[in-house]
């Protein structure tokens, strides 16, 4: 299937992926070097760097071979020979849109959101963050991935801690430590993977493709390793019960930070599950499936219920994120190509719609200096366009047909209904709850008579409008016409599912009539279920 030789259906002579990392990184350094006295030059440099990156990602999208399931634009160079580590990057259908999303989101955030102070450092960190995120999505080397995965922490930490709200340092530290806690396990897992793979490969390598295709682990070893990775990703996603950092981080982060955090950072976790969980440890991920499906469903419900109870609008959106990401995990661990495709779609969709929601909440805060739902009232009458924009984005988030959220969620639910029926049934209530809490929030904020303070709520400015348009356009476009996206995602996902199937020797796909896979794992043995519960409780303990 995937193999290093076959990879690279589309070959550009230009190392576009490398450029995608280097351009923002260099941009960040340049930004720092600009003069303090001329803030506009700083912003100019940052904008140029991020726009160039965006351009590059568009170019990437346009030259992507649609039908090719393998990695494209692959570039491989040895780096630390001693440890078998190389610069190995490439994209396939799964990562393509995340890269594009990253490329497009950053210029919007940089252009549209004002950090209020210390522009230079803010922009510098932003660009470094972009480089880190890009790197994570395109890495095909475990070490490289870990590297970018960790690097992302630093700028995000500083962004939250430096430009956030009152509790920013607490939130930033919590964010940092949670993620690092996960990475600790992942690092050990990565090293162990490479070291243990030596037995079957004969040499030490951290190359994802080589490991996934060539290495064989004993079942129990594979499961341990998978769990090590899974903890890191579960924190990042965040999966219940490791999600507690997210509301704090989101709420306290500056608007730009929240948008990026929701838009792309969380996807590192879900993407990681696909790329490094399923691909690398198919057997173990099938084994752990019930656990993650359960956690996903619990997350959906928990997020939804918690969102319902929030008084802070931003916190509400943050909890809705938890719920949405639960869906993505649900899709991922359904192991049907439909559901995974839906999951990938949903990653992008969530990035756009929740990003936009945070943007809007940020705008409200700019105007009112509060995010308390109870303080806001009747905004619709003072700012109808603003309310309309909010409505569209919110509906997308709920998953109303015709908007992008629907496509992803629908695919996930349909795709996993076949082999994860009961989880889906429970999870689907999350959709209803989402409608409930979002609409309720909308009602409280926008309907009614504005009181004294809300009377002066300013209408959307043209610049803000342009910015929001950039979000709403893809929301509508994808909702109406998702095919180009699906075409590009599906081959890779199918290949992945096949990979899992061949490696586990089980058929997961196209058994929608029966709940066979579930039974499959039920039949498999009682002890195994036992194991699941055990590791479940261990997961809690950790």
């Amino acid at each position, binding site marked *: 299937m995937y193999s290093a030789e076959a990879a690279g259906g589309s070959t550009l002579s230009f190392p576009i992926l490398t450029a995608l990392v280097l351009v923002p990184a260099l941009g960040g350094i340049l930004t720092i070097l600009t003069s303090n006295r001329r803030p506009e030059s700083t912003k100019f440099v940052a904008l140029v760097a991020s726009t160039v990156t965006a351009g590059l990602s568009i170019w990437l999208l346009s030259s992507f071979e649609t039908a090719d399931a393998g990695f494209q634009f692959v570039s491989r160079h040895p780096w*630390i020979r001693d440890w078998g580590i190389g610069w190995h990057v490439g994209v396939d259908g799964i990562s393509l849109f995340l890269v594009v999303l990253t490329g497009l989101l950053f210029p919007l955030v940089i252009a549209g959101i004002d950090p209020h102070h210390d522009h230079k450092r803010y922009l510098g960190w932003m660009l470094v963050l972009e480089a880190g995120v890009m790197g994570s999505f395109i890495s095909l080397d475990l070490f490289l991935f870990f590297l970018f995965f960790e*690097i992302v922490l630093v700028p995000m930490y500083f962004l939250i801690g430096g430009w956030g709200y009152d509790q920013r340092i607490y939130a930033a530290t919590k964010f940092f430590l949670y993620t690092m806690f996960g990475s*600790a396990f992942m690092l*050990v897992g990565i090293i*162990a993977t490479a*070291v243990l793979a030596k037995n079957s490969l004969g040499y030490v390598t951290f190359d994802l493709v080589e490991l996934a295709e060539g290495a064989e682990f004993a079942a129990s070893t594979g499961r341990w390793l998978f769990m090590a990775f899974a903890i890191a990703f579960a924190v990042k996603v965040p999966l219940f019960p490791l999600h507690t950092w997210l509301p704090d981080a989101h709420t306290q982060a500056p608007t730009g930070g929240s948008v990026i955090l929701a838009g792309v950072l969380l996807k590192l976790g879900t993407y990681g599950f696909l790329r490094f969980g399923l691909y690398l440890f198919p057997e173990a991920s099938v084994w752990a499936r019930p656990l993650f499906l359960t956690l996903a469903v619990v997350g959906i419900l928990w997020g939804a219920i918690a969102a319902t109870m929030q008084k802070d609008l931003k916190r509400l959106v943050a909890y809705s994120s938890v719920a949405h990401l639960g869906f993505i995990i649900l899709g991922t661990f359904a192991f049907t190509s439909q559901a995974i495709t839906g999951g990938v779609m949903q990653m992008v969709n969530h990035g756009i719609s929740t990003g936009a929601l945070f943007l809007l909440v940020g705008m409200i805060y700019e105007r009112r200096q509060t995010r308390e739902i109870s303080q806001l009232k009747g905004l619709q009458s003072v700012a109808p366009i603003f309310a309309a924009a909010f409505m569209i984005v919110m509906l997308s988030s709920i998953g109303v047909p015709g908007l992008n959220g629907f496509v992803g969620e629908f695919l996930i639910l349909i795709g996993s209904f076949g082999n994860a029926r009961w989880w889906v049934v429970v999870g689907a209530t999350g959709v209803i709850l989402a409608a409930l809490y979002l609409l309720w929030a909308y009602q409280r904020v926008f309907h009614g008579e504005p009181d004294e303070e809300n009377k002066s709520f300013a209408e959307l400015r043209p610049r803000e409008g342009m910015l929001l348009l950039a979000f709403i356009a893809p929301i509508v476009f994808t909702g109406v016409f998702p095919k180009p996206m699906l075409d590009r995602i599906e081959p890779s996902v199918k290949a992945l599912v096949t990979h899992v199937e061949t490696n586990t020797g089980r058929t997961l796909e196209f058994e929608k009539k029966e709940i066979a896979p579930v039974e499959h794992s039920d039949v498999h043995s009682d002890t195994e279920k036992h194991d699941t519960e055990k590791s479940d409780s261990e997961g809690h303990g950790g």
Partner: protein
Amino acid sequence: MFAAETLAGPSIPWFTLSPLLALLVGACVLMLGGSLLPQWPRGLYGIVSAATAATSIVLCFFLWDNLTDGRPETIIADALAFDHFAVLGTITICIAVLLASLTTSDYLVREGEDGPELFVLYIAAAIGGIVMVAAQDLIVLFLGLETLSLALYVLAASNRRREESQEAGLKYFILGGFSSAFFLYGIAFIYGATKHTNLGRIMKVLSTEQAFPRNDVLLLVGVGLLLVGLAFKVAAVPFQVWTPDVYQGAPTPVTSFMASAGKTAAFAALLRVSVTALESRVDDWRPVVWVLAVLSLVFGSVLAVTQTNVKRMLAYSSISHAGFILLGVEAASHTGSSSAGDGIASAMTYLLLYTVLVIGTFTIVGLVAGKGDVGSNLTDFRGLGRRRPALALALTVFLLAQAGMPLTSGFVAKFGVIRAAVETKSYAIAIIAMLASVIGAFLYLRIMVSAWMEDAEGEDAAPPVPFLSGLAVTAAVAFTLVVGIVPGWLLDATRQVVTLAGR
């Protein structure tokens, strides 16, 4: 009544000793110059000292190349080992001298003092440390240890205006002497059990002895005492009690030297002794190292978090780092497996990288603390990012590196030891180490938060960073980043330290 027999001493390979001799010459120049010429230009002592260390490093590179062709060997009646391990250790210690000299020079200016004594002590300590790194004989090792320790005691107590400094010296001295006694008793027992103090011969005796039923009590108690002594020196929990006080009380450049050169020497000695002489008894001492490593990792990190003084924090963090290095030692103990060498290599690499890191960090702490090392509380770091952005940035790099962030040397170091541990299937300890580093990360974050995100009450005009300290910090930052980004060359090189002489 002349003695009829003349004494034929062992032959001495002068070139092999050249790094040591260079240091010796440097120390003599400083002492003689200092006493003959009353008025040297300020800072010259530090430069001479740094130049001495640099010379030594250059000579080490020559030796390294020589060794690449030849095989490691033991020299001067098998008392010293000449192998890559020793040369790397020498380089590490000389780097410590080099950087610490530069910063001490500014420190002296800050304190309104002058004189070559501190530099002489640095160099003498380095000689002791280098001998420890290369010692192939327990007695030689002990003397090296004492040379190093005595110099460090004095250095710690060298600021006579600050009572804390002298208390630090006294505490360090009493506990150091105490641990030396244990160390020495251990040597005596090992000598009793094997009739040798030479590592190579001990190894031979112990490995040939396995055939008949053996009575190891004396040997094992001896090894235990030896480990206690060394654990004191490397500040592994539960023998760490002196560390926070001494690190906090000692003049900051001295602290940095202590944390770098002192640790390097003690760890190198620990590695060499345990892996060479006690190779056939790995099963007996490995658990001890394991426990020490775990305790150091956990307690070092946890206690660090509760501190409010940055020097104390870093002291505890150095205990945690010691735990990491012990991880490498533990990995090296799996002598049967093919990857035992990774333990040695990774521990030595860790020491090299940590040396640069910790000196860089402490230099900045010293600059912030100002005259008399008064301002080393966490609150004194507030607003550093505004007052001295460059310094704060450098501090951030160091702290991130200490936390083990990728693209810094700290990551390479941690990755190395974790990898070594994983290769020897010590998963539990690897995970504990990583979790400890998470707790440790919190500590570094606290400092960074103070530096970047909190503002000082009174905005005082920051005095400019003195040139030599600036140079040292810049070099350290550059090294940290370069190694972090392209570690290949270093790893290629350090892989060679695996072959120990006489093993």
